[in-house]
């Protein structure tokens, strides 16, 4: 694909006898929301971790924004615009919600070898952070210690942190996992507002969320991508029905 923001070629990762990524080829177009679905243990999180730079692939390449990033570590990829959320909520628990996002702003705006001025008094860090909190609906919770936020709020906080780094690509690992119905609907509505503006790779088990948000869906089984297509195409794909969706959902 000519206009791919993310191009994955022959990506392979083996854990002992388990082939968690088996020669994965995948293109994600600029502005696209691309969902990756598959049964537990299909290798979705392993794939996300390799895209984020937390895991080194055994073989294959990852090109991001027309540059080979296969050998870059996670912080370098983040600074190039590749942001992620974690499957298990990962935040700075002892810091306030605003601190959490301000740290993300700081990471994105570069210079951190500054030893004198109080970071919490810098409008250049606090104001974009406040705006990102407002955007995800946490504006009123800025000064709450992150550990004391409700589970759904913590997931929103993670998204706010990712957004504060002004990403070009957002890797979301099960963003609505563990949320109540209402919370998850709110999150899906919010993610829908990001569509087009930000390219999104979404791993999710909640099929309502996937079919609402995704422009295209890739189906992973046993480390391989067995089908890629629009939601109706995937829904109609025989292999997918057999391998994954099952009778109760198809």
């Amino acid at each position, binding site marked *: 694909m000519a206009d791919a923001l993310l191009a994955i070629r022959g990506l392979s990762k083996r854990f002992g006898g388990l082939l968690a990524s088996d020669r994965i080829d995948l293109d994600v177009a600029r502005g696209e929301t691309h969902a990756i679905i598959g049964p537990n243990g299909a290798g979705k999180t392993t794939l996300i971790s390799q895209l984020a730079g937390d895991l080194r692939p055994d073989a294959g390449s990852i090109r991001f924004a027309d540059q080979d990033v296969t050998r870059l570590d996670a*912080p370098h990829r983040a600074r190039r615009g590749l942001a992620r959320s974690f499957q298990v909520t990962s935040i700075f628990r002892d810091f306030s919600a605003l601190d959490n996002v301000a740290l993300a702003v700081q990471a994105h705006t570069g210079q951190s070898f500054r030893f004198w001025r109080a970071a919490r008094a810098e409008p250049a860090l606090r104001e974009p952070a406040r705006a990102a909190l407002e955007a995800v609906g946490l504006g009123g919770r800025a*000064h709450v210690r992150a550990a004391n936020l409700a589970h759904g709020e913590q997931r929103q906080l993670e998204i706010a942190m990712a957004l504060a780094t002004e990403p070009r690509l957002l890797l979301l690992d099960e963003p609505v996992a563990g949320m109540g119905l209402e919370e998850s609907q709110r999150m899906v509505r919010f993610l829908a507002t990001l569509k087009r503006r930000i390219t999104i790779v979404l791993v999710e088990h909640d099929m309502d969320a996937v079919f609402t948000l995704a422009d295209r869906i890739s189906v992973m089984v046993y480390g391989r991508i067995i089908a890629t297509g629009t939601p109706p195409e995937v829904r109609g794909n025989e292999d997918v029905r057999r391998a994954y969706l099952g009778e109760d959902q198809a």
Partner: protein
Amino acid sequence: MTISRRTIALAAGGVLLALVPPVAALTNQPFYVDLFRRVMIFALAAVSLDLILGYGGMVSFGHAAYLGIGAYAVGIPAFYGVDNGWLQWGLAIAASALAATVIGAISLRTSGVSFIMITLAFAQMLYYLGISLETYGGDNGMRLSGRSRFGGPLDLREPAIFYYVVLAILVLFLALGNRLVASRFGMVIRAAKSNEPRARAIGFSLFRYKLTAFVIAGGAGGLAGALLANQTEYLTPDFMHWTRSGEIMFMVILGGMGTLFGPVIGAVVLLLLEDVLSALTAHWQIILGPILILVVLFAKRGLFGLLVGAEPRDG
């Protein structure tokens, strides 16, 4: 603006420390000048350890190495007749910062128990290096021919002047440290302690920030070592023994990790208890041990936490 308990406690602590020499002179107990100077020197070492341990989450079990390097940086020039204090103390800071760069560059590639063991191993290596330096007294160490000389009124042979020099250095380092932990740099190392994968995922390449903090702490530890050599007018490889590293770490934990000022209280309490209890019984550590255990179990932010309560969050 209300004055917080923290501000009051800090001001009171500063005044109390400043009053030690006149009170000691009035009561004719010059011994206390000596004791509290020693306390403040260890407090400097403990505060510098708190920067990396309490704020950066780097459990360095070899902080006494820098005490030793700083002490030898005073002792070795003095052995050859060089007693200029600026040179000796400058060398102490530079040499221990350099050592911290090498030790940090290697040990910061690990974490958890490996990090503890590697920092411990480096300190023990330096300890045995000290023992092997026969020219400088080997395991007996050597007597310092005289205290560092700065010229003018800064005569360290005068106990009260030396005392106020140490107090000024401690206060200055606390003030700098207080800025540092609230700065952008400070936020990065605290974020690294709080959640390293998350800090990396938002784009912080943590190694260089941690190494910088490690070097700052090492340099300050070296300065404490230079002060300690002047305090005892004697130096031995024992300055670097791992039990000494443990003692400094105890001061940090007792006073309160990640409180910056707490380790000063930790140093005061640990060394005073040592002094008082050892006068009562030779087995004073049997009493000290349970006290430490109680503090660790029941005071989350150490003695400083008990004193000022939970830190108000301004974030």
